[in-house]
């Protein structure tokens, strides 16, 4: 397929373009292979930065694995300097806690865009080695 930009496909000049051309998506039918894994995170006892992005990003997927049952004491999500969610406790298990997106890597989830910064912080009771999976695509 020829490289048509999403911008031109959409017929819109002001929209943020999330891929350089349609090939980007065509070659990524399953997003799972594009995820980055951050393993051995220790967030016991204090609110710990799990993922910090500076700049403009599209975050397609974000989830944790290897957590014990209900071990998350506290978590906070700050986007563009604004706390959009903060709560004590969150149900969890060892197969995955999805903030958004799923482990099967489906493009169906639209994710979220941050304009200048994205910060996910977590605190656990006992788990000192869990994993974070994410896909954050830089955009300008």
């Amino acid at each position: 397929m020829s490289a048509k930009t999403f911008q031109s496909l959409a017929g819109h000049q002001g929209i943020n373009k999330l891929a350089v051309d349609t090939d980007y998506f065509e070659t990524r039918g399953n997003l799972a292979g594009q995820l980055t894994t951050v393993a051995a995170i220790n967030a016991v006892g204090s609110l710990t930065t799990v993922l910090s992005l500076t700049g403009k990003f599209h975050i397609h997927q974000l989830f944790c694995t290897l957590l014990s049952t209900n071990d998350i004491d506290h978590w906070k999500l700050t986007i563009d300097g604004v706390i959009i969610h903060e709560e004590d406790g969150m149900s969890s298990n060892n197969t995955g806690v999805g903030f958004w997106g799923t482990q099967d890597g489906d493009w169906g989830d639209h994710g979220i865009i941050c304009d200048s910064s994205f910060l996910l912080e977590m605190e656990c009771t006992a788990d000192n080695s869990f994993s974070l999976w994410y896909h954050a695509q830089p955009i300008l």
Partner: protein
Amino acid sequence: MNKLQTLMETPTHKIEVPANAIINPKNFLPKISTQAFFRRLTPQERQSLRGNGAAIRDLKEDLDRGDLVELDDTVRQSLTDSGLFTPERVDELMILGESTEGKLR
């Protein structure tokens, strides 16, 4: 503030995770199509690139095959070793988005 390690840092983008975490770098960096890559080059850069095929042979082979260019260390090194691009310019070329491409169109 907990210590952090930087996974990616460009003039406009930065990704940080806990300092002690173990990173699986597989597919961490975005890929860019060859068409988009060339569109972003200035006419002078495009000309220089064509004239320095030997210096960046591996990259050129990828480009000739029409493969996606992955922003890995090898590609970065090839581009900067060629003397045609600064590391900052490589970041600019590889970042996905409309601004860079639009500017050079």
